[in-house]
């Protein structure tokens, strides 16, 4: 019967171990969760503290008893935040739309049409995926400057349109759709264009939505290019807008107003993320990188 006790002991220690492990895992995970969430909490908290209250706190308080929306009013009135916002929306929508059009046509050509030189063209496309943006941005800057397109939407948008990776992603998806569908449509006298937009796209909608969302995130957060080609506040996007606010905006010390602007800028994407959480995460794990 000695053995019997042995088993009981093993069973007990195993249970205790499991509990201890669980406590440790949850503690650590929660700790990092806190690290992630805290900056967001702090920016919202600061944005609703009044200017005088914020500046009188030598040791910052973790809460406020007299929240105010004054900073938000300030953010929209003192600096052209609404203008940055509109610019970014225009930039994002147009760039994404153009990108979708170009990508869909190219992906369709690669996936479905047969023409001479297709394989070579595709190989060249693929090798372009490895070209870092930093290399080509210099000439693009010069090109746009020479074309007199600085401080225009065209100058902002055109170089940001292409994404070889998305063409590749969509082409892969198109190729998964069985050939029979295409031939059936052909037999019925459907044109290629109609087949693409009436049959293929509705089937591949999830991928199209995914790349659209990824592009939107990329556009919303893009900083380097807008900074290079715009120096007129009228064409600032939120990223270089916020940098402008930081350096010349409310007077250096009006941090609550600055935080209000930060909140306003961050909220649209967070809402988008919470709505399309599953799609975005699936899309990113299929090979997206930070834009």
């Amino acid at each position, binding site marked *: 019967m000695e053995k019997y006790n042995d088993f009981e002991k093993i069973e007990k220690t195993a249970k205790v171990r499991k509990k201890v*492990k*669980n406590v440790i*895992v949850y503690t*650590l*995970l929660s700790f*990092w*969760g806190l690290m*992630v969430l805290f*900056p967001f909490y*702090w*920016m919202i908290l600061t944005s609703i503290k009044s200017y005088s209250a914020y*500046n009188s*706190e*030598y040791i*910052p308080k973790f809460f406020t008893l007299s929240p105010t929306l004054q900073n938000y009013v300030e953010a929209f009135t003192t600096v052209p935040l609404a203008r940055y916002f509109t610019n970014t929306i225009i930039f994002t929508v147009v760039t994404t739309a153009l990108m979708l059009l*170009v990508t869909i046509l190219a992906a*369709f*050509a690669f996936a479905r*049409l*047969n*023409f001479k030189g297709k394989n070579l*063209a595709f190989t060249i*496309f693929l090798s*372009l995926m490895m*070209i*870092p943006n*930093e*290399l*080509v941005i*210099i*000439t*693009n*800057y*010069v*090109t746009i400057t020479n074309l007199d397109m600085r401080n225009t939407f065209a100058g902002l948008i*055109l170089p940001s*349109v*292409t994404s070889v990776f998305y*063409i590749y992603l969509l082409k892969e998806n198109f190729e998964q759709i069985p050939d029979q569908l295409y031939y059936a449509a052909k037999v019925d006298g459907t044109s290629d264009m109609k087949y693409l937009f009436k049959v293929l796209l509705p089937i591949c909608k999830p991928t199209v939505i995914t790349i659209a969302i990824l592009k939107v*995130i990329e556009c919303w*957060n893009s*900083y*380097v290019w807008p*900074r290079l080609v715009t120096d007129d506040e009228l064409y600032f996007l939120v*990223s*270089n807008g*916020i*940098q402008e606010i*930081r*350096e010349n905006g409310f007077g250096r010390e009006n941090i609550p107003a600055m935080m209000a602007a*930060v909140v306003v800028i*961050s909220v649209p*994407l*967070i809402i*988008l993320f919470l709505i399309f*959480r599953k799609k975005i*995460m699936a899309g990113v*794990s299929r090979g997206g*990188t*930070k834009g």
Partner: protein
Amino acid sequence: MEREKLKGWLYLLPAILFLGIFMVYPLVDVFIYSFEEGYNSASQTSWGIGTYNYSYVLRDPYFLQALKNTFILVIITVPLSTCLALAIAVGLNSIKKLRDLYQTIYFLPYVTNTLAVGLVFMILFKQTPYSDGLVNVVLGWFGMTPVDFIGGPYWAKMFVLCFYTIWVVLPFKILILTSALASVNQDYYNAAKVDGTSKFRIFRKITLPMISPTVFYLIITGFIGAFKAYSDAVALFGTDLNASEMNTIVGYVYDMLYGNSGGYPSYASAAAIILFTIVLTITCINLLVSKKHVHY
């Protein structure tokens, strides 16, 4: 057939136009720029072809500072963020309750504007005449003397930059590693479990080899990404990175191109090509190493 052929190229035309003008042409052009000595962007003339631009850049103290900063950043953040992401992903994989919630929270930094949240970090770390800043207050609880992390000593600034960089890159890594872990066939774990394998040994001998291709992918992309660091630094220290000794190679490229010190596309091109060469070399080394260590 002739029509069919034409149609194919017609569908490709927009993509080819965009890529040609904004990718292929610039790629060729950047090499030309980098070898054109004394290029003047106003008159679009140069006095010759040579390697002067490279030697200028390599002797420029600002570039050397940027090089040093970038290397420190890479060496610290790539291993640290990968290990941290792995630990978090393993933790996530071992729980059932609240897993979705944690995953969602961890992913948040990915969808936020780097510049905007960088401001929050700046406020948290900055020491001003009016306040020590929250981080210093917390450090004070542990008896440490306050430091200005944004305008103070070099190590403090580097610490914030690394910390923020890790905070920004972690969501992507956690996501990729979590899905890699989830895709390991459960039977391997069950087989090891039945054989009485300890948790640590399962991780080292089974989990790690199984996900090693993903880990190496993350290390390679991590290196590439970290070498291109720029906007994180701008978010924390402002646009004049040279003044705060916190410039990066990419930052140097842009400074050469534009702004107060700008107007030198040749120097910018040379610096960009140096960066590209470094990244390419390191990626090749990484690939060679991963060939040796990824087993199947």
